[in-house]
């Protein structure tokens, strides 16, 4: 069994989260933004499991909430991509800055 120091795992997931935020801020393509959000959720999952491994009193808690996060991420991806497909059918674009119908 390998025991890494907890701060190393936390810093790793922090970096992963920061990369995800960067992608969500900078991408123009809506699918790119969705992919970046998946990265962020993944980083949060790593944190949950690390905390449940190292500190929790009931070790199942973190894993169960990681499961919930995975389920929510799957629904988010499905709904988001359905919206992207509907948008592409109507507006023929997937660039976030070209979808400005509600902007004045």
């Amino acid at each position, binding site marked *: *069994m*390998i025991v*890494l120091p*907890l*701060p*190393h*795992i*936390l*810093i*790793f997931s922090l*970096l*992963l989260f920061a*990369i995800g*935020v*960067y*992608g969500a801020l*900078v*991408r*123009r*393509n809506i*699918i*790119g933004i969705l*992919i*970046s959000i*998946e*990265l962020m959720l*993944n980083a949060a*999952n790593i944190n949950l*499991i*690390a905390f*449940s*491994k*190292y*500190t*929790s*009193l*009931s*070790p*199942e808690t973190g*894993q*169960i909430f*990681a*499961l*919930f996060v*995975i*389920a*929510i*991420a*799957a*629904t988010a*991806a*499905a*709904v988001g*991509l*359905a*919206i*992207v*497909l509907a948008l*592409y059918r109507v507006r023929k674009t997937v660039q976030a*800055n070209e979808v400005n119908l509600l902007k004045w």
Partner: protein
Amino acid sequence: MEILNWMAKFGTYAVMAGILIFALGVVTLRNLFHCALCLAAALIGTAVIYVVLQAEYLAAIQILLYVGAVVTLIIFAIMLTEHLAETTIRQNNSQSPLAIAGLLGFVALLTALILKTPWPITQTALKAKVSVMGLGKALMGAYAFPFEVISIILIAALIGTVVIAKKDDPEERS
């Protein structure tokens, strides 16, 4: 035994570095299809990290649900919307320097916080084993309510996805 332990640690850090490199690929590559493949690689690496943290069931779920379902869905959406030949379109907006500056501050702040916090690491938690049976019992016992809420969200999201993505019938609109 000592050298094996050291090699396992080194391998874990190598996997972490690989995940970060693939994640950078996800946010910087121009071709979205390559981005999706990088995402799949990063997610598989995350499953390896789960195995290191002794969450084997979560690793299996990660491979099945993320790499199997979500990445497939994303690749489908890319295929349906993008023309793969048109990779010359600019993929990023002009906020990149601002975003990098802000995120560097964020990362520095949180790193200082992580290193300063005295984490309550307990030996009982480190020694505890999580079995699939324990997970199922907790899911059906203490966490039955969130489990039911998740199932309602899943069914609502599925119906919503079908409604949003289906083609509009012109005759239906009369």
